[in-house]
């Protein structure tokens, strides 16, 4: 049977295990695409070390002012909700980093003094690593928003078959929202601490707001009590599985290796997680098509 689904992997903060989970699940699946939407600090490629890399630039449009045509009416300055324009000493100043590329200023200018130019904000890299197609987004340092890059990666990733794992940026801000917008199912990765519960709650509220089916993977579990597990049980949240607090797993991961490719016991662990996940997603699509 051909399984085609898009799974977003989220957490309320960095370092919870999003990349561990998405990289290892993608490596476990037969036909998978891994998409790194954490464009401010993408690190999935460090594990996959993809080959046959193709890079393409991501650009946005920003206004360019022909000052000689400007009458100083300030329509553009007043229109811009992001305040990317200012009128100083009879000239329009443009703040490219603040611009959201809506193009409104160009349309409104009665003197046709505004045109648009392309500005690179980062790049996409696509490659392959064994069975996995790897697509990563890289936002240039100093750029404010990674959303245009995320939009472009998702466009690219969605054309592929099999299971797509979307490694999301941490937190619940615009970039995380954009990353899950097209997902069929969300995995929330949680740490077994009170702080972990706080972070889990952030993404829990986000997926509820977006009406996405979701389940939780409890990471770094020990024999101690697990507040994140209690949080899930109290709210009837599906727990897809647990990953142990394990020095060997931590060492493999911190050496930039993929656990399921290194050790059979981790392959079994992630195989079971993947089975649970697929069952759960198919169940969700039957219940809430």
């Amino acid at each position: 049977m051909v399984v085609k689904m898009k799974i977003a992997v989220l957490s309320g903060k960095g370092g919870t295990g999003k990349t561990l989970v998405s990289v290892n699940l993608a490596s476990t699946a037969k036909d998978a695409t891994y998409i790194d939407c954490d464009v401010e600090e993408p690190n999935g490629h460090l594990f996959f070390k993809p080959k046959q890399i193709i890079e393409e630039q991501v650009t946005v449009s920003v206004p360019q002012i022909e000052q000689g045509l400007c009458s100083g009416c300030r329509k553009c300055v007043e229109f811009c909700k992001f305040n990317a324009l200012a009128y100083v000493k009879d000239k329009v100043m443009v703040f490219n980093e603040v611009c959201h590329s809506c193009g409104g200023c160009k349309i409104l200018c009665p003197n046709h003094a505004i045109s648009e130019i392309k500005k690179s904000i980062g790049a996409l890299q696509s490659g392959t690593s064994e069975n996995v197609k790897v697509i990563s987004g890289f936002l240039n340092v100093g750029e404010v928003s990674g959303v245009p890059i995320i939009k472009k990666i998702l466009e690219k990733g969605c054309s592929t078959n099999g299971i797509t794992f979307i490694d999301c940026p941490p937190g619940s801000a615009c970039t995380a929202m954009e990353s899950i917008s097209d997902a069929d199912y969300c995995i929330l990765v949680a740490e077994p601490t009170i702080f972990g519960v706080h972070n889990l709650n952030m993404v829990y509220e986000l997926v509820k707001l977006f009406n996405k089916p979701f389940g939780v993977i409890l990471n770094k579990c020990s024999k101690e009590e697990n507040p994140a597990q209690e949080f899930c049980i109290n709210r009837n949240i599906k727990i897809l599985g647990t990953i142990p607090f394990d020095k060997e797993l931590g060492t493999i991961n911190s050496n930039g290796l993929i656990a399921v490719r290194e050790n059979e016991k981790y392959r079994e662990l992630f195989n079971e997680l993947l089975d649970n996940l697929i069952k759960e997603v198919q169940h969700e699509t039957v219940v809430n098509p």
Partner: protein
Amino acid sequence: MKIAIPVDENSNDTKVCMSFGRTPYFLIYNTDTQKKEYLDNSAIASQGGAGIKAAQTIIDNSVEALLTPRCGENAADVFNTAGVKLYKTINDSVDDNIEAFKNNKLSILGQIHPGFHGHGG
């Protein structure tokens, strides 16, 4: 000449506000007439670029110097282009700072922060 200070209230017992771009009000003080007037800062509710919009308000009111605890780089760009001088406030008292400005005791604001952009998305 006119000078501006970001302030918390629009009354004479107000303190200097810590934020420039998102201050609720600006005090505009005319050193020639010694008159104070208060302006609403419409940039306070901006989704982004508050510093740029606040700087626009200041320059549109023909202010020549801004006395502020801090200022972000985008607003500082607007002020540099407009030729408005930035001075660092010495404490949160409006009158102390005006007095210090008149006596040439304020130093130029040297540290321009990179802004607090993108927090909370």
